[in-house]
C-alpha cells in the first residue's frame, strides 16, 4: 500500500476544485475507493462511480423518473412504510422496478478509473484542502486516545488537531477506512491517512 498514489490523489483533488471541475477521475485501488466512499459519506463528494477512460453519464443527464410516479411512490410509502425494505427475490416490488444505471467498466483493470463528482457551495468548493498526514516515508499510527485529542483540536503524536471548521481526518483501521470521530466513538486506532477541510 503505497501512499504516493494517495498523495497524488490529494493534490489532484485540490487542483480539480481550484479549477472548479464538476467531475474528475482518479486511479482505482481498494484504498482509494474506500476513502472516496468515506468522503462521500461526509458530504465532500456528490458521486463516486467506477468507469472507464471516458466519464460516465452524469446522473442529472440520465433518464429521470417522471414526477407523477415519484409522488405515487411517496404516497404508497406513507401508507405502507415497510415497502421501503427490498422485496424478497422473485417477487415484484410494489414500488415499481428499481432503477439501475448502466456504466461501462472496462474489462482491463488498468483502464478503470474512479469518477468523482465534486461539490460547490456559494461559489466555493466544499473540498478545498486535502493533505496527507502519514507520508510514504513516515507512517503515523494513532491510538484512540490520540484521535480523541486530535478531534478535540489538540495536538497529539505530532499530528495537529482538527482546528479548521468542519475539518475531517481519515484513518485506516482493521475495521476499514473510518473518519477520526468514528474511530473515537468505536475506540479504535489506526494509521492516519489524510485530512481535508
Amino acid at each position, binding site marked *: 500500500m503505497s501512499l504516493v498514489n494517495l498523495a497524488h490523489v490529494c493534490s489532484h483533488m485540490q487542483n480539480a476544485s481550484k479549477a472548479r471541475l464538476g467531475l474528475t477521475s482518479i486511479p482505482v485501488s481498494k484504498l482509494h475507493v474506500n476513502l472516496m466512499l468515506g468522503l462521500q459519506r*461526509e*458530504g*465532500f463528494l456528490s458521486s463516486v462511480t467506477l468507469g472507464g477512460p471516458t466519464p460516465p453519464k452524469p446522473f442529472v443527464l440520465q433518464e429521470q423518473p417522471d414526477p407523477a410516479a415519484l409522488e405515487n411512490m411517496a404516497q404508497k410509502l406513507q401508507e405502507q412504510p415497510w415497502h421501503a425494505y427490498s422485496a424478497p427475490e422473485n417477487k415484484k416490488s410494489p414500488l415499481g422496478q428499481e432503477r439501475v444505471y448502466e456504466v461501462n467498466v472496462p474489462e482491463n483493470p488498468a483502464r478503470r478509473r474512479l469518477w468523482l463528482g465534486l*461539490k*460547490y*457551495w*456559494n461559489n*466555493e468548493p*466544499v473540498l478545498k484542502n486535502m493533505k496527507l498526514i502519514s507520508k510514504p516515508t513516515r507512517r503515523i499510527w494513532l491510538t484512540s486516545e490520540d484521535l480523541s485529542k486530535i478531534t478535540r483540536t489538540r495536538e497529539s503524536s505530532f499530528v495537529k488537531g482538527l*482546528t*479548521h*471548521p*468542519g*475539518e475531517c481526518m481519515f484513518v485506516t483501521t482493521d475495521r476499514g477506512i473510518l473518519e477520526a470521530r468514528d474511530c473515537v466513538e468505536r475506540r479504535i486506532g489506526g494509521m492516519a491517512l489524510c485530512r481535508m477541510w
Partner: protein
Amino acid sequence: MSVCRPARCLFSKAPASIAKPSPPSRSFHASAARPVRKRKPHYASIKAEDLKLLNQAAETHFPKYDTSETTLLGKRYTPSQLAAIKAAESAIDARDIVTQGQQRTDPFRLPYEDDMSEMDPVTDHAPKLSAADIPGPITFRRANAAERDAAIAQIASENMAKMWPDGVPEGKLGPKEADHLEETIEAAMFQATLDPRSAFYSKNPAVMEAMADPRHSAVLPDLPRLENRMARQARRMANEEQEDPRQKRLLQYMGWNKRKLSQIRVKTLVVHGVTNQTRMGKIRSMYYLTIAGNQDGLLGVGEGKSVEPEEGRKQSIMAAIRNMKPVPRYENRTIYGSLEKKVGATKVQLFSRPPGFGLRVQHLIFEIARAAGLHDLSAKTPRSRNKMNVIKATWEALTSQKLPDEIARGRGKKLVDVRKVYYGGSVH
C-alpha cells in the same frame, strides 16, 4: 568598613526618628507598585476623637427636628405622613450622612447641583402665593375715577423709572431721542392702564401689593434667560462646526448620522512617504493605511495617499469606514476555527482561543482585533511581516471566514456546536 572611622560612629545608633527619605526610584514593573495596589477600605476607620468631632458636625449640619419644626410639618402633612417622615429620619444616622453622603449617580438625578432647601431666583420658579398669604383683611372694590387716575399716574411714573434708570432726559432733545421718549411714555401709560391696581382699590396696602406681585398671578412668569458669554459661545461653536464635505458624503453613503460615525474606532497604523519620479523631479507624498471598526463585528481597512498629509490621512479614514465588512465572531469573542491567508510574501495564521485567553498577537493584528471586537485570539506571521500586507491579510482572513452553517449546507450534514449544547446555550 574602614578602620579610620571613629569609634563614636560605630557604637552610636542613628536616631530612629530621622528616617532618610528614600531616593525617587524607578519602578521596574508595568504593574502598579504594591502600596498603590493594596486595597483600601471604602471608608477610612475613624479615631475616637474624630468621632466626637463627627458627632458634633452631624448635629450641627443635620439637627433633629425640634418642636416648632414638627408643628410646622404638622400643618403641611397628615399625621400618617408625619409618622413616615419621622421613621425615615430615624432610619438614617446623621453621622452616616456626614461620612458616606455621596452625590447621586442614578439616571434620575438632576442635571445640576442644587440645594433643594433653598430658592434660587435664577434657576427656580418663584413659589406661588395664594390669598392666605396676604396679611390683613382682603377687601377691595372697583376704583373710582379719581383713584384710577392717581394709580395710573403712580404706576406710569414707576414704569418710566424702570425704563430710564438714569432719569428722564431733560432739555432740548434731538428728533430721534424725542420720538423714543414719546414711545416710552406711551408704553408706560398703556402698561399702567392694564395694571390691576388701576382698576381696583383696597384700603389694605398688602392687597394692593399682591395685585402687582407676579407670584399671585395665575400665569407664572418665565424664568430669566441665561445670557452669558459661555452659553453664547457654545451655541455659536455648535452652529459653526466645520462641515467636512468628504465626511458629509460618507454619511450620505452609509446612511448614518454623526453620532454613529463618532462611535467608530479609527486608527492609522501605517504612515510613510512615497515619491513619484517625474521628468520635473520628485513629487513627495504621504501614504496612510487606516483601520476602522465598531468593536462589535465590523472592520474596514482603507488606504490614502496625498501630497498634503492631512488630506491623505482623511482619505484613508473615509476609505476604511466605507470598506467596513462584517467579521463573523464565535460567541462574540473569537474566530471560527483557525484561519490562514497569504497576501504577497506575507502569511498570517490566526487561531481561535478559549475564553479569557486574551489577544496574544503582534501589535498590528492586536489593533485589528480590538477594532473588530475580538477578545481571544493568537496569531503567527511565519513569513514576511510587511506591515501593509499583514493588515490586509488579517482583514481578508477575518472577513472571509467559512461559517459552520455554510459548511453544513455545503456538505448536506448536520453540524452541532457542542459547547452551546453542553452549556445549554448560555455561553455568552
